[in-house]
């Protein structure tokens, strides 16, 4: 009986401790990583994990795709209170603001300043990260660095080069918004009227209604969201300048110059109609480059139009997944997660991910790799995009982020479509969006 009770004690205590700490009994440190990668991107991640394990053989990276960014955000908001969140996850800054609001995110500056966890020569220098990408993680209301860049994207203008070549006497690829609308007018009124172009829908289409609104506001100096001196976030897009902007855009839509995903037939992505030849210019994410590919015509790519050659008018939106770390697990798990992040953003790894996906590498040194330079000179569309965006460093902007700013981003994306399709008045669309966004925010913290 004595032996039995001792064994029982040993077994149950071991079982209890194991279950409580998340240890699976293999004696290794398990890091749970949630992301949104598709199958082929996960295959590349698995290669990085294999290489990582040569340095850290006692760490197991348990990664899983959690659907799209919105689904990942929702699941994390459910998992955090239950304590079932991962150790690290893909994130957008707006989402991190929500996690910060419930005090769930690690400030990685503790790691940066640690003798053992800071950046080693193998990891590359911290200042090797493209500065605007790194600064995004410091843009929260709370001081610190709460997200770090993994792969970045922006928007570019894809165009049907054959179409522009055929009509070069009338049009050229626009570089400013003024040129864009003039070009759209000529295409609509002088070129689409020709029989051979009778199946065309619009000269141009913009994939993301939210990005259109936010980028236009940034380039024109129109208030969208702000942080005030006290560190509070505010919704400020319900203003006359923003209404004037939407009125102007609706006018261009009414003239048949352009459409967005919110108003385009069947809510198709602009890339769908672009590759079908029904539009000639498509503004979309560099992360979706593979969908803009066509063997039926030569695809060109240039930076998005701007409103001026300098200042805010010359800014581009910065997107793409960052990574945040959660206040969960043992110190060993947290440190392993951080070491894994440093590893997967080493020059070669960030370059490899960029080449496969179309996202931009996040390290300056990646662009300087001879193999990456060689890649940029190839005729693959993703390489053309990377060559294009490699010129944009220093011109990216990030909107203020705070609890509820994710909602603001969503609702401003509905304003244009509501007004253009006549489902709401201009004032009504703005008022509804404002009410929804402000209700989602906690201000005056």
């Amino acid at each position, binding site marked *: 009986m004595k032996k039995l009770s001792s064994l029982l004690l040993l077994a149950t205590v071991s079982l209890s401790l194991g279950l409580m700490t998340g240890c699976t009994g293999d004696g290794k440190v398990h890091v749970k990583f949630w992301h949104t990668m598709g199958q082929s991107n996960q295959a590349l991640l698995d290669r990085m994990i294999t290489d990582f394990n040569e340095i850290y053989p006692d760490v197991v990276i348990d990664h899983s795709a959690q659907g799209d960014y919105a689904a990942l955000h929702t699941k994390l908001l459910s998992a955090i209170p239950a304590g079932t969140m991962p150790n690290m996850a893909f994130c957008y800054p707006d989402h991190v603001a929500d996690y910060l609001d419930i005090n769930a995110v690690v400030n990685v500056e503790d790691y940066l300043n640690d003798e053992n966890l800071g950046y080693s020569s193998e990891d590359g220098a911290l200042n090797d990260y493209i500065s605007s990408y790194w600064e995004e993680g410091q843009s929260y209301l709370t001081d610190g660095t709460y997200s770090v860049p993994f792969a970045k994207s922006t928007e570019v203008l894809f165009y049907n080069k054959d179409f522009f070549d055929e009509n070069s006497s009338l049009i050229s690829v626009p570089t400013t918004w003024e040129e864009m609308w003039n070009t759209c007018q000529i295409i609509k009124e002088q070129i689409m009227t020709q029989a051979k172009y009778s199946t065309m829908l619009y000269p141009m289409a913009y994939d993301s209604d939210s990005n259109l609104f936010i980028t236009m506001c940034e380039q024109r100096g129109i208030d969208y969201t702000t942080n005030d001196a006290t560190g509070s976030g505010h919704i400020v897009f319900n203003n006359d300048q923003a209404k004037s902007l939407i009125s102007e855009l609706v006018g261009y839509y009414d003239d048949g110059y352009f459409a967005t995903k919110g108003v385009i037939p*069947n809510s198709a992505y602009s890339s769908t109609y672009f590759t079908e030849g029904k539009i000639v210019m498509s503004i979309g994410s560099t992360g979706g480059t593979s969908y803009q590919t066509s063997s039926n015509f030569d695809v060109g790519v240039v930076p998005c139009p701007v409103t001026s050659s300098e200042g805010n008018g010359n800014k581009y939106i910065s997107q793409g997944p960052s990574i945040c770390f959660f206040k969960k697990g043992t110190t060993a798990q947290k440190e392993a997660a951080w070491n894994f992040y440093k590893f997967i953003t080493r020059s070669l790894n960030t370059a490899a991910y960029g080449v496969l996906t179309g996202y931009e590498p996040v390290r300056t040194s990646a662009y300087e790799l001879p193999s990456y330079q060689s890649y940029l000179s190839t005729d693959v569309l993703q390489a053309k995009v990377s060559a294009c965006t490699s010129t944009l460093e220093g011109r990216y902007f990030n909107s203020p982020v705070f609890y509820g700013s994710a909602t603001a981003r969503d609702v401003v994306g509905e304003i244009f479509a509501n007004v253009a399709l006549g489902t709401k008045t201009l004032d009504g669309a703005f008022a509804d969006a404002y009410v929804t966004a402000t209700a989602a925010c906690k201000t005056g913290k």
Partner: protein
Amino acid sequence: MDKKNKLILALGAIVLAVPFLNACNNSIDYVSQCHLSDYLPTGITSYENHTFLDDGIGLVTIQKYVDGDTTHFLQVEDGTQRLVKARYLGIDTPESTGQIEPWGKKASAFTKSKLETAQTIVLTTDVTEIGSAATVDSTGSRYKAFVWISTKANCPVEDLKLLNLWIVQEGYSTGKGISDSTLESFFTNADLQAQEEQIHIWAGDDPDFYTGPATPTTLQELAETFEEDGSESSFNGASVSFEGIVYKLSGDYDAYLYDTDTEGNKYGIYVFAGYKSYSPLRTLGNRLKVIGTYTIYYGNPQLTNVSYNAFLPEESTDMSIISTGNQFTIDTMTINEINTREAVNMVYTINNLTVYDGYTEIDSTTLVPSGALTLRCNDANQNQISVRIPEDVWAYDSNNNRADDWADFDGSVINITGAINFYAPDEENPNTGYYQIKLCASADLVVVS
């Protein structure tokens, strides 16, 4: 520590452990908690006397099982059947058709098994939109749908089960694309529960998905095995590696490879790149060693699950370049010569075909031409063949205008270079079909008169 205290401690530890152990046994059945009747708008109490396409709710029957998250249904209205290609809302199961992913076949089988036993199948839009017409997804060709089922005929609306949610609860898909839906919390909770319980896709490796080394073979062996049993190869579904020369680019991402045997006979294969641009595969004349999954897709062999990354190469799975700049020729054939199974996946030129009939494909969802055309042609000896122009390859008529109707070629004499495919119009009888030539690039169709 005396015996009594040890026992007390042991019992305490058991008490402590029980909640953790029980966590796996107290699964919540979210499917049984989600009732369509709770979400019907005023004025709609049942699916009867409504149609999915017009009202966002209606009865359907099965037309075709596709995969885990897509099914083709038939809606009957005024005695007329209308095809409804449905993409399930809120889920994204692993691929099981063009691409094959771990758990894809099992997810597809689960969906099919539930539909096969269903006596009542009701499609709805997102529940907040019931009462309005159905809408399509971003591809423009599939309707977004919740699929509600029951094994009972004429099932009352309150007893229907949401198959989309069931698939998530059973761990065959993550919840996805449902952040705006009233039902989001069901999907999120079911998803997180399946993850905690580590079932199916959350359990790790698919035990039936082969991940070991690829079997070395040749295009000759693959072709001969394919021919042996008339429809399927013993390699079907296996991971294989072989060499071949890139000799025709197809569409935006894919390519045809060929290799020769010692007697100079040629054997071809179609390589599906999964919407990724791999530069070695898109460079004519490259001799590659390719590694992937060999599958038979609607009667045609293909290689899927290929990969390549110059920065982090993986010898056991990536394609590799053996040599570059290899010269090749595309043979000119007659209709009779390509009407054989050996010709499948080979690229040939056939000259002087006269277009005498055709078919303009209408997208069943948008009801407008999809861009895909079939041209029925004959040669000088009245031998007949179909030329398939897929929707992602543009063809130009004699006036150099892009053709959107087969009649744009009516009476024309054409030269065409393309890949030989087997086409089975009746999916229930995949061996009953005919050979056709598929256009791979715009410039390969030339109108000569």
